[in-house]
């Protein structure tokens, strides 16, 4: 790994000043599990690293009004074990538990993971399903970016060089929603997914699908929502047949690459299989809740 300047600012304004000074030549260091690996392979060679962990107040997890606010530096392990997350967003507890190993989850952060924008990651599929957005700060003030507008391409986001994520905002799921996260792991338990699917389903008392959301990871150059599958089901009676027909549509929106975890063709097939299973799982959970 080549050398670089190292800074550990203690406040957000100091961090922003450093970002502004170095521009695209600086990288923000959160947990480092993604960035340091890329630097060790010389895939990324920043002139400066700006460590964020000395800035207080960036790792909280708080529920308010209709949403949960998660500080950008909350670790995967913080989220996995948080009582607030367990109560308000069980889908996230379930998802973060599936990421890598405890040792990695101890340091990898929610904000760092999103800025890293590796489409193989698990959390984005579930965060997309929950209509998450990120709050940023920059010398111009900052903005709220819906997650669907954050991801641009492999390891590429719409964040500006002088901008940093400070908070992740997750709306609470609608009343009566059931959720699930399925990660297909044919190799080892700590691997990236061959494909991962997050799903949310709201069916009314007559069993009509009122809200359907499908998110996929490892299925293209960014994590995606399968809007075509969702639209095919909304207004339809929930049934295994309906799920099967709708899940087949996911093949039109996924664009996986062939790698050690399977050929592109195989992954497209598995995207359909796991989309169907995720819908079935949500429906089973919904029926179990009925009196």
């Amino acid at each position, binding site marked *: *790994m*080549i*050398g*670089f*300047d*190292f800074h*550990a600012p203690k406040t957000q304004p100091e961090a922003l000043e450093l970002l502004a000074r170095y521009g695209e030549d600086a990288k923000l*260091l959160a947990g*480092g*599990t993604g960035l*340091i*690996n890329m630097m*060790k392979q010389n895939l990324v060679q920043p002139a400066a*690293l700006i*460590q964020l*962990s000395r800035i207080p107040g960036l790792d909280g997890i708080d529920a308010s009004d209709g949403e949960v606010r998660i500080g950008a530096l909350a670790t995967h*392990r913080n989220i996995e074990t948080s009582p607030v997350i367990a109560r308000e967003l069980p889908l996230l507890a379930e998802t973060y538990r599936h990421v*890598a*190993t*405890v*040792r*990695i989850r*101890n*340091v990898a952060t929610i904000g760092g993971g999103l800025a890293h924008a590796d489409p193989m990651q698990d959390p984005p599929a579930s965060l997309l399903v929950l209509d998450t957005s990120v709050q940023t700060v920059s010398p111009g003030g900052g903005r709220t970016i819906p997650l669907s507008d954050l991801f641009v391409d492999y390891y590429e986001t719409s964040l500006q060089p002088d901008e940093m994520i400070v908070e992740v905002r997750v709306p609470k799921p609608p009343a009566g929603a059931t959720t699930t996260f399925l990660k297909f792991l044919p190799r080892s*338990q*700590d691997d990236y997914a061959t494909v991962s699917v997050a799903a949310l389903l709201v069916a009314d008392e007559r069993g009509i699908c009122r809200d359907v959301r499908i998110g996929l990871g490892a299925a293209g150059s960014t994590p995606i929502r399968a809007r075509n599958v969702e639209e095919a089901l909304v207004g339809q009676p929930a049934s295994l047949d309906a799920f099967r027909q709708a899940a087949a549509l996911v093949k039109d929106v996924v664009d996986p690459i062939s790698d050690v975890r399977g050929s592109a063709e195989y992954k497209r097939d598995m995207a359909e299989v796991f989309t169907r299973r995720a819908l079935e799982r949500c429906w089973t959970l919904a029926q179990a809740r009925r009196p």
Partner: protein
Amino acid sequence: MSEITIRINGKQHRQDVPANRMLVDFLRYDLGMTGTKEACSVGVCGACTVLVDGRMVSSCLTLAISLDGAEITTVEGLAGETGLSKVQESFVKYGGYQCGICTPGQVVSAYALLQENPHPSEDEVKDWMMGNLCRCTGYYKIIESVMKANEAE
């Protein structure tokens, strides 16, 4: 170069480090503490596991310079003045090692688990220790060693 102050196994160190020095190299080459091993170098295998402020991390993915003021525990810090720690004794008693290269990482990870959960179930051990690979494949005895570490004598 920047100077960092870091506490390792209870002993304070003040040392200049280059920005790109990984913690595992700092321990092994700068301080001569070769108990911590490096194998995969990408955070997957667990050989280089140490505790930073009580949480297990991969020292091959951690920059030493980022740890100013931190408290580190390595495998050298587990034994007390009266001898090996319980978890180390258990690895000896139940044969939780073969060639030994993964053992420091296994023992440190097990120690971290037992701090949180003194009597883990088999599933809890497997879940926690999943990121510590043993290429001799001695997993059954490792699991047994962890589960029995806090058993009454």
